[in-house]
């Protein structure tokens, strides 16, 4: 159970013991918290003692009287602010002059509890302070975690961007030093490979743009009636040259007209990624079946291929950033490792779901459900 440390700084012994008595049996609960907060109170009779205890004990909450025998409450407050301690301060004071109120506000006092106060007044004040403290700390924690995830994303990204540059640079050096001969024909493979790496890098950059778009865009303005049949046809047209090269047949099965409210670009992201994956990870002479269906609530999309499949172990990470399944069968297939992560994010945005069934060497089926109404 989380316990908050409260320090009461007041020269009146009655106030100090009163606060201790009231708060030692008090607990604060909120529906969004798993556990209740309880309080443990310590006391200081002067500002000087208060500062020593703040330095030593690091309380979470300080209840601070302004009129003290030595230094004043506002000076204690100023001290706390200068030290940047993570502590919430409430002033308890019998009369607040404008000057004191302004100073207290300037140094970040959270609350005023007028003296004399009833137990109920103190409790409701503490309840407010606790909630603020909790939210402040949880936000801080979430920001920290967010930063870490972003940092990892960037480090992998820079690896993915540097690898093709290194490869192309190496080939250019070979050519510069005329390592294989003086004729351009002597460098057919390095040129071919460089172009290939550059092309993969370009598709990574395109994926990155999609990725940023999903994260930054305001959706509401772009929602319109989308005919999924058209989106599917466009995706098929886009991937067709590649499919012909791979000798993969693509069939579109329409079990319904499937009209939904969405940003058409999002639906393009889903179809383009899943259709091109179905071709990319297929076998020569294989096929891809795309089925568009619906029930009462949702549009149901199926993307089935007859490709290399995914084993159970690899399925778990499939939708994470930069995850590419590395094995003998995928080594000559280029990709950013962002496609499925992007698809998943779009599906989540629409409160839909995506699942995968796969049998290694037989094929993979992705099933997407999207609510017809956007909310």
């Amino acid at each position: 159970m989380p316990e908050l440390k409260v320090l009461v700084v007041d020269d009146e012994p009655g106030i100090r013991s009163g606060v201790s008595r009231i708060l030692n049996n008090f607990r604060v609960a909120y529906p969004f918290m798993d556990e209740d907060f309880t309080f443990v109170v310590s006391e200081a009779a002067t500002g000087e003692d208060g500062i020593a205890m703040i330095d030593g004990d690091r309380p979470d909450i300080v209840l601070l009287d302004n009129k003290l025998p030595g230094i004043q409450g506002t000076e204690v407050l100023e001290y706390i602010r200068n030290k940047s301690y993570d502590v919430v301060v409430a002033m308890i004071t019998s009369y607040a002059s404008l000057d004191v109120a302004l100073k207290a506000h300037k140094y970040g006092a959270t609350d005023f509890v007028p003296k004399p106060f009833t137990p109920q007044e103190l409790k409701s004040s503490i309840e407010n302070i606790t909630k603020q403290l909790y939210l402040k700390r949880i936000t801080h924690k979430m920001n920290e975690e967010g930063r870490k995830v972003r940092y990892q994303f960037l480090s992998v990204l820079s690896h993915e961007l540097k690898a093709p540059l290194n490869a192309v640079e190496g080939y250019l050096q070979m050519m510069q030093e005329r390592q294989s001969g003086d004729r351009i024909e002597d460098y057919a493979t390095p040129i071919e490979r460089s172009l290939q790496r550059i092309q993969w890098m370009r598709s990574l950059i395109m994926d990155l743009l999609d990725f940023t778009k999903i994260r930054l865009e305001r959706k509401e303005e772009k929602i319109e009636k989308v005919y999924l049949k058209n989106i599917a046809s466009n995706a098929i047209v886009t991937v067709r040259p590649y499919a012909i090269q791979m000798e993969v047949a693509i069939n579109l099965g329409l079990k319904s007209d499937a009209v939904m409210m969405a940003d058409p670009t999002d639906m393009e992201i889903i179809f383009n990624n899943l259709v091109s994956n179905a071709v990319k990870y297929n076998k020569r002479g294989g096929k891809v079946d795309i089925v568009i269906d619906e029930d009462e609530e949702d549009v149901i999309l199926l993307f089935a291929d007859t490709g290399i499949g995914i084993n159970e172990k690899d399925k778990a990470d499939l939708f994470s950033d930069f995850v590419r399944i590395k094995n003998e069968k995928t080594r000559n297939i280029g990709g950013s490792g962002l496609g499925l992560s992007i698809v998943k994010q779009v599906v989540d945005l629409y409160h839909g779901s995506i699942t995968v069934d796969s049998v290694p060497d037989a094929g993979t089926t992705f099933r997407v459900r999207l609510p017809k109404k956007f909310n």
Partner: protein
Amino acid sequence: MKKSDFTILVADDDPDYLFQTVNNLGRAGYKTVAVESQAEAESVILKMKPSLAIFDLMMENDDSGFILCYKIKKKYPDVPVILATAVAHETGISFSLDSEAEKSWIRADRYLEKGIRPEQLDMEIMKLLKI
């Protein structure tokens, strides 16, 4: 000993980078064995003792290079190992998380940033092989 008396094992899952490294080492005069994965490297280590090994850090596992360092040093403590990575400073975080613990058992002799010039790589190798 001449450079051609040394066999260097190179493991990297980027086929282009592997090709170029092997090409450069060959031009410098070394014999090479090239493999594209941690698994292949492991089976090579079982069969032969290279004079030196260059491992990419991230192959089929994020720590493939570390694992290979450990395995080769266990079997042949005297074989120098170079760990090559394109992510030396970017992954500072993921390195530093366990690096103190890992340093005790990963004993790569050099960490090299990918993309170093062929002559530089050759110099590092000559130092390690004491040529």
